[in-house]
């Protein structure tokens, strides 16, 4: 059995996966032991980046330089047809820095708390209109931090009421098979149950891209994404 490595949260997921191993009956149809899915995400087309439109254009905050590589960090890869599993809560921080949420995309398990520390020298606000979690943390100054617990799976869009161009996405899963790729685009989904699986890469602008692949017991499977998938 291989040790799953998902993003930066290796330690917590270890516990989670240990629990999975303890309860193998979750996939009654899949008697075979799980396998690792490794892959790589490429952004196949340049993503148009527009300078932020603002009625007050010049500020102390420099315009963000987004290298194409960093766009890969705005992708979440997950197992599409996974059944809900008991999962361990995580703790993730989304900083407010240079009038933007950093990181802009995070993926967490159900029950996790996300912290929103304000690292800018100005006030920020954090709110969401999303169904999965509807909240407003109010306005708070530098050094302050507020946290939100996400108890339902889904996608949550987070905004700042003061700075209309700021947004972040929190994806909440009720299973452990998800990952945010590293800067080089590589990702790894550990302990994926064997069988025919659908792996989805979601990008906040480019939407969903789904691959079908057969996961065989004891062998690692490859899932390479080029986003977006050209229409056929």
């Amino acid at each position, binding site marked *: 059995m291989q040790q799953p490595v998902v993003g930066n949260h290796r330690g917590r997921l270890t516990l989670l996966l240990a629990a999975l191993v303890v309860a193998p009956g979750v996939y009654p149809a899949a008697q075979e032991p799980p396998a690792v899915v490794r892959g790589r995400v490429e952004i196949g087309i340049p993503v148009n980046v527009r300078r932020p439109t*603002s*009625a007050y254009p010049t500020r102390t905050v420099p315009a963000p330089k987004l290298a194409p590589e960093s766009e890969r960090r705005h992708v979440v890869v997950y197992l599409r047809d996974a059944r809900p599993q008991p999962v361990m809560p995580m703790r993730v921080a989304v900083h407010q820095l240079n009038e933007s949420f950093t990181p802009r995309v995070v993926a967490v398990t159900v029950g996790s708390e996300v912290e929103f520390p304000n690292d800018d020298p100005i006030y920020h606000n954090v709110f969401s209109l999303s*169904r999965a979690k509807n909240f407003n943390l109010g306005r708070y100054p530098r050094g302050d931090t507020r946290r939100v617990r996400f108890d339902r799976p889904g996608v949550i869009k987070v905004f700042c009421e003061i700075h209309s161009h700021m947004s972040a996405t929190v994806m909440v899963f009720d299973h452990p098979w998800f990952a945010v790729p590293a800067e080089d685009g590589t990702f790894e989904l550990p302990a994926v149950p064997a069988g025919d699986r659908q792996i989805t890469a979601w990008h906040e602008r480019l939407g969903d891209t789904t691959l079908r692949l057969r996961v065989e017991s004891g062998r690692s499977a490859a899932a390479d994404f080029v986003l977006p998938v050209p229409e056929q």
Partner: protein
Amino acid sequence: MRRPPRLVARTLTVTFVTVAIILSVVFIVLMVDARDRVRAAEVEKLSVAEKVFTALDARRQQEQLATIATVAENPTLKAALDTYFTESAFTGLPAEQEQSLRDTVTVEAEKLAALTGADVLAILDANGRIFVSAGPLQDRWPRNARIEIPAGTATFQDITAMPQGAFRVAGSVLSLLDRDIGALVLGTSLDANYARELSNLASADVVITVSGAVAASTAPAAVAADLVRAGNNAGDTATLNGEEYAVRRLVGSGPARIYTLASIDAAARTATRDALMALATVAFGAFVLAALGSLWLAQTLAEPIDRLSGEIAMMTASRDLRRPLHLTGSSRELDSLAEAFNELVQGLTTAEADTRAAYLGAIRALAATLDARDPYTAGHSERVSALSVLIGRHMELTAAELDVLRLGALLHDIGKIGLSDAILRKPGPLTVEEYDQLKRHPGQGARILRQVPFLAPHIPIVELHHERPDGRGYPFGLRGDEIPVAARIVHVADAFDAITSARAYRPARGTAEAIAELQRCAGTEFDPVPVEALVAVLPLSTTTLEPALQELLGRQLV
């Protein structure tokens, strides 16, 4: 023959014709000049209107874009929009959630629409489809209709033709830090209202065409249609629907064209009317002045002439030519006319006096010749004349009547010239035939005098001096007042002289006897009034009648 016109009519005619000619020339010059000036003015007006419009519109668009860019920075709007599309793409939205997010966007859009006062305001999704529209004309921008968003700019403006009409659009992309989630677009409908506003601004008609069709127009439909047909060929001026128009294109981008135009003909008509009104006022004043001047001139010319002719008429009526005409002093010409007239009158008076003297001389000679045929009647006519004047003066006859009386008496027996000496000088009673011949002498005398118009006033005396108040006289047997006073006087004086003169068949009788005889016959043969007058004047010269008469005659018959 037609009477010549009055002086005032002539002066009025001359001044009026002069004024009319001057006014006509001014009118023609005005008409020719007015149109050229109006054309230049209208073209210039539209040129100014275009500049004003361009400047105002550029400023308005700049301000509008700034406003849009500001209101586009709406966190709630962006959050609801982004949440809506992200979540619906990820897992789909339950109806309740979808409605909630859409309502949030709608409320924000309506607030912004009210704030900007736009005809219509729309929130587009990232593909340029209308997600929510608000504003008075929101029905024209239905959901999911597409509006082109130009790439690469944060704000944009354009003219777009939608199925429900053309719009000027100005918009701003709604973006998060690094991506566009949609756009906010304000639309201004290019409809009749817009055309009207623009028309007010330009003080000229406005025609809006979209894709070669008239979308809105404040000009008549036929004019707009002609403008579309003329298209880009229209220069500064064009003939539309048969009238000349100044034309200017205000907007020429996209499918829409906005023209402003002004009718040169209509403006020329107005200018012409104004000029005509001014000219009419001037004309009225000029004619009034001309009329007053003419009347004054005619008055100053005609008044002295009227005065002169009045004096002449009075002279003619009174037959008094001795007094000269007064000089009017109004003009040299008129004064010399008056002087010439006076000289003429003087000459005439002198000539008439000469004529009169010549006539009198001739008549006296005639009378003397008659008297001389019979020694018994020598000086008879002269005496009757003198006596008649005495009687007439006593009866208070006028000087003119006395003049008539004097000559008439002198000539009263002139008709006897035709009688033969046998009858005239017959010593003894006349036969009936001879008496009949004698009775013809008054008629004969009248016939002789009728040859000389000058002697007409004396004819009654000659003809009627044998009539008697009792109607038994000759030749007509007139009675009483039918006989002129002068004839009655001469009748008395003639009888008196006949009685007091010797005849071949009887001697002269005395004055007293004669008067007694006359008084006896007064009322039948003689009029009593002259008889009494004779009685009254005779005592003055009872003894020296003859010398007194001679003296009288000598004085009066010069």
